[in-house]
């Protein structure tokens, strides 16, 4: 009798374990399917359907789902929703640079440049030499005619990537705006070595000569 009870208990436990593994596999499978479907719909430009497929398996604590929903909502033009999903992703993975780079897409589309600058500064704290962020920060300050601040960012990437066309060109223009014509001339000439027919670098040189 005791043996029969032990066999029954063991059998029940085995059934539970198998069921749990099966459920987990099913979850993993449905998540995988949802992501797969979302990519398929996205490639067809059907962003609403892509979002729907992910929302069926939505888990608030999933960094991956929130990040992906942030991107898809941004693609659909739902910037406020996109911002909310990216914010959730950042709170789940506080050191995530990719979520912050995603966040700035809808935020800049809404014209919320202070939020963009805040996120970029957070990234620069994590990775001070991040090429894209330094370049974009330089562009923001250049657009605001704050050439001294722009110089700081362009100079940094030009030091790390001394023959990078974008860094050379923008550092050239920033020097030009700051009245450092000799430095600007050298930088425009280097940019022309990278892209020999570049109109912007040529324009810069012609302005210095005239």
């Amino acid at each position, binding site marked *: 009798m005791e043996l029969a009870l032990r066999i029954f208990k063991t059998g029940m436990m085995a059934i539970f374990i198998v069921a749990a593994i099966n459920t987990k596999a099913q979850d993993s499978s449905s998540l995988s399917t949802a992501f797969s479907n979302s990519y398929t719909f996205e490639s067809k430009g059907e962003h609403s359907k892509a979002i729907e497929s992910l929302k069926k398996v939505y888990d608030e604590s999933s960094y991956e789902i929130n990040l992906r929903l942030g991107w898809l909502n941004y693609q*659909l*033009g*739902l*910037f*406020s*929703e996109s911002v909310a999903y990216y914010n959730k992703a950042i709170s789940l993975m506080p050191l995530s640079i990719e979520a912050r780079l995603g966040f700035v897409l809808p935020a800049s589309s*809404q*014209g*919320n*440049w*202070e*939020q963009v600058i805040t996120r970029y500064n957070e990234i620069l704290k994590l990775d001070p030499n991040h090429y894209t962020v330094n370049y974009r920060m330089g562009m923001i300050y250049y657009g*605001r*005619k704050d050439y001294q601040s722009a110089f700081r960012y362009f100079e940094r990437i030009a030091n790390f990537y001394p023959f990078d066309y974008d860094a050379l060109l923008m550092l050239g223009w920033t020097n030009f705006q700051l009245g450092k014509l000799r430095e600007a001339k050298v930088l425009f000439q280097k940019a022309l070595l990278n892209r020999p027919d570049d109109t912007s670098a040529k324009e810069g040189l012609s302005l210095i000569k005239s």
Partner: protein
Amino acid sequence: MSYKPGSVVFLICLSFLLCGNTLAAADYEKITLRLYYEQKWDSLLMVGEEAIGKGYDYYYMRMRVGEAAMYRQRYVRAARHFEKALEFNRDDFAALSLLYKSYRYSGRYTEAGWLLKKLPRGEDLGFGRSEYRPAVYLETGPSFSNHVDQFEKYRQKDPGSYSEAYLNKNSQYYLAGSVIPLTHRMNVNVAAGLLNFNKNRRMDIAFVDSLSGDYSVLQYEAYLCPSFSISKKITISPAWRWVNVNLENPFTSTDSLIRRFIGPAGNTSYNDYAAGGEISYTAPRWTFTAGVWKIRVDKSELIQYSGELFYKPFGNLNLYSQTAVHYKTGTDTANYIFYQMVGGKLFSNLWGEAYVSVGNLAGSAEHNAQVHYNSFDNINTRAGSRLIFSFSRYLSVFVRYQVLFREGTELFFPFDRPGEIFYYQYINQSITGGIKWNLH
């Protein structure tokens, strides 16, 4: 802007649509953008503010809704949206310039002044330029009095030994001044004035002589008022007014007895002044001002305390009011003065104001000592109106009609009792015209 029936139908339909409460960000974005391009400002205000309330709050939404509020002349609301837009995009020129306009059009000049330093000078496209240039103002006009007629009507008819009265006749007034901006936080108001009062002196000495002589009282006035805004909300404005009074004695006599009555011959001169200042706190729809001044009129000195509230119920200058309570106290006098003004836009470029004050104005100062009532006769009530026509942002003219209900005096000595001062009523009416030109 005129309302069209189509707009009303559209608004009603929109209300039903919004009742469904199913709009998403893209819908709000789409609708507000379309309303913006179609310039349906009322609808845009309604939908946009609902979107913001639901969390669809971003730079472009705030800018659209802010502009809609501005076109509907809701400048306080517009300013709130532009302030928020600047939180999203700190140095944005469009938001800065529209916020500057919203502040100006709602009469929040101090806040506008503080914003001015953020506006790029080279590209300001005219915004704020007037704040860096002096404004010149000129005023002049005659004043008419029925004092002589009223005196003849109400003078003491009983037999007496002595009677004396100083009667006001017509007068003229000239004023020239300038408000000179020194920085975006400081300006100075300087002015000079000339007042010419034509008067008549009467004196009857029983059984001796009966005298009547015309003379004039000339007043030279100077005014100085620097104004400092110590924050976006608070402005301090000390003020000084100096008045030099010159009067002549119209009577001369070779008789030594009569000379004792009529006083010394020739001209007399003395100085009056008002010195003090105001402190103002400005909120979006109102400004409260408190002030204190020391005032000297001939030989008497007074202290005046004032509290004023300037209120714009709609946050613009289409309707406004000013309420003031003054309290002045001296060695032998103390009284309250209550002042109420209501003004508003009558037509596209025409503003009208009407005002009344109750309480003796004699010896008091008004509008931070820009006006100083240093006459002897009591002014118990005053009423007036002003029309202001604005040709452009830089040039405006005004015409003002004012009536003062005054109290004339007669020093009279009856035969059978001691002398006393007798009072009677008369009125002064003045018509003043002026011009204000912002040099640019």
